[in-house]
């Protein structure tokens, strides 16, 4: 009887320690509160032979250990906008803007065959709808960040505004997106990169639809205001009975266009077909415990 209760206690202790070990984050992410936040803006990859020859590569992505070299060796193709400088392959018809994807035949569990990674040295995938970004995170066992998580993880990222030096600062005043992690000073107090500028990042929340965002011309009237530290806020307040997705952080051309990116920049964007979608990317997260 004594042996039994001791063994039960050991069994329970083993389970308990397994759950406390789960508080460590995979190497493609850093711990921030109760979440593991991806260090890099997401790049989305189509991987051939995902259930056979490249099964190991897919496993590595799920564990957060895949590298660009691994993806290149597996002949993975990056998905995103074809517009320069991105020059990526647009999402296949089986992964449409409304997020209603078709599983790859024979995939078990069902998979769209596309995998979001958090790796340095690639342009972030952009021009994906909120639905596509949401599904892309889910397909690798992750999710979009909540607005709270994004705000917390972005803390203290230095905001270059007009003083983008095209080398180490956040990309806030340049024409094109830059490779993830390449701006070495663009890092938050928690170790998360590129949260200011580069591409706007979808977060999980919806809010009431705001006014349609205008074309990138300074000086026209629209309902956005400078918010904290001058960062742009376009948040709700319109008569349209429709949702918007929130995007955070701003993008490369924001200062150039007379807007301001930064850790407080917040926009409501049409969920599927916003005019600015070419510069909306995303970032994924996992629950930490």
């Amino acid at each position, binding site marked *: 009887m004594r042996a039994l209760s001791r063994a039960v206690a050991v069994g329970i202790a083993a389970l308990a320690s397994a759950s406390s070990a789960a*508080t460590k984050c995979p190497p493609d992410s850093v711990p921030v509160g109760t979440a593991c936040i991806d260090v890099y803006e997401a790049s989305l990859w189509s991987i051939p032979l995902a259930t056979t020859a490249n099964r190991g590569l897919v496993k590595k992505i799920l564990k957060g250990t895949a590298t660009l070299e691994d993806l290149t060796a597996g002949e993975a193709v990056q998905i995103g906008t074809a517009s320069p400088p991105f020059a990526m392959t647009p999402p296949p018809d089986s992964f449409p803007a409304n997020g209603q994807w078709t599983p790859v035949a024979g995939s078990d569990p069902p998979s769209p065959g596309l995998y979001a990674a958090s790796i340095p040295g690639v342009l972030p995938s952009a021009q994906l709808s909120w639905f596509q970004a949401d599904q892309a995170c889910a397909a690798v066992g992750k999710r979009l960040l909540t607005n709270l998580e994004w705000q917390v993880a972005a803390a*203290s990222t230095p905001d270059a505004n007009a003083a983008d030096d095209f080398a180490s600062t956040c990309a806030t005043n340049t024409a094109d997106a830059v490779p993830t992690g390449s701006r070495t000073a663009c890092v938050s107090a928690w170790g998360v990169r590129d949260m200011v500028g580069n591409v706007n990042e979808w977060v999980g*929340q919806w809010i009431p639809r705001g006014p349609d965002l205008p074309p990138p011309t300074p000086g026209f009237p629209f309902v956005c205001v400078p918010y904290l530290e001058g960062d742009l806020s376009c948040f709700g307040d319109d008569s349209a009975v429709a949702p918007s997705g929130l995007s955070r952080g701003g993008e490369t051309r924001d200062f150039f266009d007379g807007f301001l990116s930064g850790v407080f920049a917040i926009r409501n964007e049409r969920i599927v077909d916003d005019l600015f979608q070419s510069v909306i990317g995303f970032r994924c997260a996992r629950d930490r415990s």
Partner: protein
Amino acid sequence: MRTGWSALCFGIALAAGHPALAAKKCPADSALVGTTCIDKFEASVWLVPDPTGKNRGLVKKLGAGKATAAALTAAGAVQIGCEPPPYSHAAIPAEYPANGNWTPIAGTKPPTPGVYAASVDGVLPSSCLTWFQAAQACALSGKRLASNEEWQRAAAGTPDPGATTTATSCNTNTLAPSPTGSRAECVSNYGVFDAVGNVWEWVADWTDDNEGVCAVGFLGDLSCFGGDGSTPIPGALRRGGGFADAEGAGPFAVSSVHDPVLTAIDFGFRCAR
């Protein structure tokens, strides 16, 4: 030996299969509410000296929900928030500004401003902190702000005294906050204290900044919710009402009147894991 192995397997099976044992276990400073561990007490925010050196163990205890107010004080930690009485808390350091963009203490690994949120009883909740500061304080303790939905769930069953505050009821109609957990009747069905009254509690959700269009909402509690077509900036939600809101405080009190960067003597928060 064989008996030992089968007993071990039995133990694991029991732990995995029994609903009560399989459920998420919460640290002692919190209560299980659905899938979330909600802090039992409104947050007190502490500035801990030498947090990655001498007081590393204490910071670990904070994350594990085992730190007490006595242990924090003994380690030289001071509570920060509103400086005027009745709070008389230490000033929020300049390295922990209203916008949440904190500066790490030199040499700390992992980088930290030394600021942590605790869920302990018997202290005044920390107020005069912005939503940004509240959100960071939870994260630095390995937690997060509760979402609006989690807050609503956790508050269920808290008796709402309306304007008739007694010594043991929720603190809804006085001139000052009371120590966390000191109002014995002010507890929810889940064991969460002070959700009604005392200090308003920031929750994670943002909505349109309301700018003061309030009404008597559900069951007489205050509702200031939804955009009024003006400034397109976010308003962070607060819940539960404060010590001077009388009938307006309650489990349905909700307000987005404030931009997340603003503060008041009756704005506190609560963390969750």
